[in-house]
């Protein structure tokens, strides 16, 4: 009882404080009242502290098995191991909403502390507090995590078997944090417009926040793919399901923004577009939550379909209208300071990249909402599956990769002809890749186009590092020390190129596993074999182990060459006979052998699905590089040095390498 009272009391206090901070923040921004703005900011911090207290109460309730709280009883039991017990916090709707609110409050609170004073900060406080107020309203009135049962159950019902996995500890927190953190750049974008400021300070602040949200979302999406691949056992990692699509949408839009913001930073152009992107990313994350929770679009994923749907729809409507009006009213302020001098320039490349990402976002959005649109249009829902998305996004991703090979070499403002010489390395790499594929006997058009493009993009990204290393060699002191200092001083540039390289490596993984996946189903008796892609698997035996309410079946398979693989399947009697699969994966740098035990009829036969998934490991490696690049590029503090940029600028051929 105590923890429930503490938690719901803290949420009520947070709601009152956030509502107060919102009104006072917006008023003090409008009238430029400095002391009142500070009051609003402090109220926001107090609200954040109250949300943290409520979160701590829920966590404590899980750890102390306080089953009188319905949410705790539904998402844990006495047998749940402690790490998963702690993860019960965000295993269901109410808790994940509280987690979302917590992230918004913490990241918002920290960014307000760093935002200095002034009207921008006052307005940002007001907008952030308004967002927080909305989530707290839902937590207090609709989806309370501290609702009590009328009895105290002896034990909880436990975490759903699909969630009993290490991935549960890391995937949802990152994805939800990514979703939540899009609210912070949104608040600063609104504040900039309200305060009539769209200058350099605004852009550097918003850019950093957007990069943080983007990094969190990138991590969350990667972990989601990793989880789907290792736990769900369908041989793939991305199914273009609405729930996945809506998580991708804000990521696509923010990818556009972190590039186009550089045009605004350097050239004072595209201000309206940039504001629109930041706002769209947040609105799409709210749209995503609405889609997932309201059940308006059929999805394979299971989520609680609940009363919060209409609340999110109303909130989304208000936010869309407010953002649109704000952009329209402030349009004169956002006029470009300069114009585009030439399409063949860094600005032109960024612009094309932006348009392509906007196109991707539109295509994914279209495919996701098509059932709704067709239902409205002719009263009957139609849907599209993965082939739609592959056909639309494939060519767009290919053009983007080509742009990744060329864009970073282009100089700002206007490219002459000198930069063309820098194309020789990407072109060499492309020709080499093409020759290698032809020599290997590949005749399909798609890989023959994709692989050289990838090679060229990789060469461009690596070239920047070679140039840096060469420059470091000419500096005094040891080469390694100089190279490290150079990388740290120019971390934003080297971080960006590391992220580019990560994208290329991951894209190679996506392409390889898409074009060359092999799949075979087989029903084996002991002693029988199945052969897939050069692997020969022989069934040794089928084992069945019972432990309490769960029944574990395992197939012991001998792989030619000596290894053993044991895919399994666990059936949970206490979850209505639901089963979960334990995929056996044997990874090498070039391919994964992926074996799923589908069924064991007659307790000696094993029905298996065997996949050979080429280059899947590259996806995880590429994502790791990308995230490393984001961390390096956004590491705070220090002054940016311009040394290498100046040095290369002296050589006209390499002038394009300036960031």
């Amino acid at each position, binding site marked *: 009882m105590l923890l429930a009272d503490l938690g719901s009391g803290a949420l009520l206090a947070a709601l009152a404080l956030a509502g107060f901070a919102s009104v006072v923040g917006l008023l003090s921004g409008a009238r430029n009242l400095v002391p009142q703005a500070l009051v609003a900011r402090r109220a926001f911090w107090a609200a954040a502290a109250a949300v943290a207290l409520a979160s701590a109460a829920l966590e404590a309730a899980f750890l102390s098995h306080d089953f009188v709280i319905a949410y705790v009883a539904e998402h844990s039991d006495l047998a749940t191991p402690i790490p998963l017990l702690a993860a019960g916090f965000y295993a269901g709707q109410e808790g994940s909403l509280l987690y979302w609110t917590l992230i918004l409050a913490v990241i918002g609170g920290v960014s307000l502390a760093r935002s200095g004073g002034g009207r921008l900060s006052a307005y940002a406080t007001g907008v952030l507090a308004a967002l927080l107020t909305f989530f707290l309203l839902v937590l207090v009135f609709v989806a309370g995590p501290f609702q009590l049962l009328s009895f105290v159950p002896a034990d909880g*019902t436990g975490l759903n078997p699909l969630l009993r996995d290490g991935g549960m500890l890391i995937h949802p927190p990152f994805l939800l944090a990514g979703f939540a953190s899009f609210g912070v750049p949104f608040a600063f974008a609104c504040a900039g417009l309200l305060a009539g400021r769209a200058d350099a300070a605004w852009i550097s602040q918003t850019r950093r926040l957007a990069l943080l949200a983007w990094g969190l979302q990138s991590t969350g999406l990667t972990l989601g793919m990793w989880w789907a691949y290792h736990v769900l056992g369908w041989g793939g990692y991305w199914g273009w399901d609405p729930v996945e699509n809506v998580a991708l949408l804000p990521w696509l839009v923010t990818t556009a923004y972190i590039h186009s913001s550089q045009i605004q930073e350097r050239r004072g152009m595209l201000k309206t577009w940039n504001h629109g992107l930041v706002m769209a990313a947040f609105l799409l994350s709210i749209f995503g939550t609405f889609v997932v929770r309201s059940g308006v679009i*059929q999805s394979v994923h299971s*989520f609680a379909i609940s009363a919060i749907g209409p609340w999110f729809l109303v909130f989304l409507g208000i936010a869309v209208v407010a953002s649109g009006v704000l952009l329209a009213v402030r349009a004169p302020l956002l006029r470009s300071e300069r114009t585009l001098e030439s399409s063949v320039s860094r600005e032109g490349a960024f612009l094309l990249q932006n348009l392509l990402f906007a196109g991707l976002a539109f*295509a994914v959005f279209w*495919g996701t909402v098509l059932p709704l649109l067709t239902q409205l249009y002719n009263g009957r829902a139609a849907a599209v*599956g993965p*082939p739609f998305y592959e056909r639309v996004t494939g060519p767009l991703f290919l053009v983007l990769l080509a742009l990744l090979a060329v864009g970073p070499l282009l100089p700002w403002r206007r490219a002459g002809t000198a930069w063309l010489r820098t194309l020789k390395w990407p072109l060499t790499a492309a020709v080499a890749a093409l020759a290698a594929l032809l020599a290997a006997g590949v005749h399909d058009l798609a890989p023959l186009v994709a692989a050289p493009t990838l090679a060229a993009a990789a060469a461009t990204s690596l070239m920047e590092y070679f140039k840096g290393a060469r420059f470091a060699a000419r500096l005094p002191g040891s080469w390694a020390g100089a190279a490290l200092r150079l990388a740290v001083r120019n971390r934003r540039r080297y971080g960006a190129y590391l992220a580019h390289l990560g994208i290329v490596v991951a894209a190679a993984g996506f392409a390889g596993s898409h074009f060359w996946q092999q799949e075979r189903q087989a029903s084996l008796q002991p002693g029988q074999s199945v052969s897939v892609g050069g692997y020969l698997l022989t069934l040794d035996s089928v084992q069945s182990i019972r432990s309490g309410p769960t029944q574990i079946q395992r197939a012991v398979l001998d792989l030619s060459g000596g290894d053993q693989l044991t895919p399994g399947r666990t059936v949970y009697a206490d979850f209505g006979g639901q089963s979960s*699969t334990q995929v056996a994966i044997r990874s090498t740098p070039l391919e994964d052998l992926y074996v799923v035990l589908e069924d064991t009829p007659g307790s000696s036969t094993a029905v298996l699905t065997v996949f050979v998934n080429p280059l899947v490991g590259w996806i995880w490696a590429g994502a790791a590089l990308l995230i490393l690049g984001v961390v390096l590029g956004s590491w705070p503090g220090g002054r940016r040095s311009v040394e290498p940029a100046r040095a290369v600028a002296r050589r006209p051929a390499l002038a394009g390498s300036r960031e």
Partner: protein
Amino acid sequence: MILKWGLLAAVVAVCVGYLVFSATASNAQYYRTVAELKRNPAVGDSRVLGTVQDDVQRLDGGLEVRFTASQDGASMPVDYRGPLPDIFKPGIQVVVEGQIQTDGVFHAKTLLAKCPSRFTVAPTPPA
């Protein structure tokens, strides 16, 4: 200058528009009810939502599955060959894509399980 930006944007928009339009035209499938499909089986591929009945049979050593799918009182036999989702069992809802062939059986090319609407089961009071 505005013209230059606009031209680039227009070219990209036309290309994306064409891709989206053509892919929608060739891939979109209508959701149909079991009753509709039984009245008019020759409509090409459809998506059908139905509840799996108790008569699930595994054929061909477990590689193929045959069951009856019901929706609002109408039902039809479904045949599917391929990997089944973990939660597949009688009583759950599935979305099948495919068509009714001359044998009167709906041959599904894909089978997706609609997960239960909640990830949880209700706690029970102590006895």
